[in-house]
């Protein structure tokens, strides 16, 4: 057997070892939390609104939706809600809808809380916490920005300021 064949066999063996070792190496990148769904179609589940009527995220397809997961026991959620209310008014003419989704609580509790804060944007009651699970909430509040095609464009863990909310929706919002 000539030297060329020996070298080919050695190269082949080295390549094989590289392939098998690389195959078992874990990837270094991972996105957890609500940002993990960016680029995917936003899942929707049928729940009820504050009046007990059926409602879902899918009802708002065609609008830019700021989906805010909250609960009445969560102080940062309470602190953030006036800014969400302000956002809903500021961007309503530009096709933006703020949609609150109460996580795991009774409808009466969610309604009393929203009323006490003067919330006028639509609120859904998700007592099975389906939205919280699927949107990979790491805590409350969690905010997801969904474009008019129903694709998740951004996800945020924790309370946002009005400026942060505006910065998230501004590139998507139409002209007034």
């Amino acid at each position, binding site marked *: 057997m000539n030297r060329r064949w020996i070298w080919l066999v050695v190269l082949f063996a080295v390549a094989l*070892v590289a*392939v*098998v070792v690389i195959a078992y190496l*874990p990837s270094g990148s991972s996105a957890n939390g609500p940002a993990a769904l960016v680029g995917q179609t936003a899942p929707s589940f049928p729940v009820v609104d504050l009046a007990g009527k059926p409602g879902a995220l899918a009802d708002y397809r065609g609008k830019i939706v700021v989906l805010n997961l909250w609960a009445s026991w969560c102080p940062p959620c309470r602190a953030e809600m006036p800014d969400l209310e302000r956002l809903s008014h500021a961007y309503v003419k530009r096709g933006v809808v703020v949609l609150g989704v109460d996580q*795991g609580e*009774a409808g009466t509790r969610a309604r009393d809380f929203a009323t006490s804060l003067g919330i006028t944007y639509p609120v859904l009651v998700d007592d099975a916490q389906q939205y919280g*699970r*699927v949107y990979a*909430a790491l805590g409350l509040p969690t905010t997801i920005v969904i474009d008019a095609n129903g694709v998740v464009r951004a996800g945020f863990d924790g309370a946002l300021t009005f400026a942060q909310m505006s910065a998230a929706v501004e590139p998507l919002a139409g002209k007034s």
Partner: protein
Amino acid sequence: MTGLLAGCVAIAIAVLLELVWPGQAVYQYGWYNALLATAFVLCAVRARAVAREGGVPALALLALVVGTGALTIAGVANGLFAPDPHVVIGSPGASVRVDDLHGSLSFPLATADPVVRLDRNGSLTEIGAGGFHIAAAFALSQVRRQVLAVDVADARGAHLTVTQPNGSAFLSPVLTMPTQQNIAGMLLPFDTFAVPAAHRVVKVVLFDRRHAEMLKTLRSDSPGGAVLFSVSDEDDRAIPHGIALVADGTTVALGGLRLKGLAIAYPAIRIAAVPVPLVLVLGTLLLLGGAIWCRLRKL
């Protein structure tokens, strides 16, 4: 020549078995891998002797040895470098990143005929009950385990949020029971959750039917298992009369909460390393090609 072929085929079978029955402990034993490597070295030495005897094309023998070597490398690498088999547990509706697979597993919300979806760079694969799937250098199969869906309300019956600060999904009322608690010599599934609105933390131990039958306090005609709830405050201080053992699916008033737990069988995904499929295919083709070529020339 026959001994050489038998040795090569034996190595091939041993390595291919790692694909058919993935995740066996023996594959990781040092002696097993040393045996595979030694067998290959013996085959290579024998091939060199056969080549010197003449009558068999050198390239055919080379293909045979290289193919067997590829299979040996794949098998030994699987045994020595691959991660241990493990089970990925996900809460219903949750998506769990699995770095080994360079992708994520999405667990279904529904419990009827649940299908777990593997997403690798946008390529979706469904893993159903009894399903078996090879992804990268790993075999994925669905296993069923008991999880507990909890329902929590206040004293008036108003639903309350359940959170799992240390669980696989923060906002999930389904406890995946990932750890075990030793009670009276029995290893029982254990989990914990919080009820922030009531400032309560609840520890949960799940007894399956077999273990529940050992409990004198339960009705003997209870069809399922039992659930032990232990309610404490947010600083983990026990609440008086805050511990109860109830039949699966029964509501109990405890520490200002109304608690109900329902045990359900829910899928998890077992991930076991296998020899790299590409190398297996390549090695097997070379081995078969070399073996057939050698035999043809002998005839």
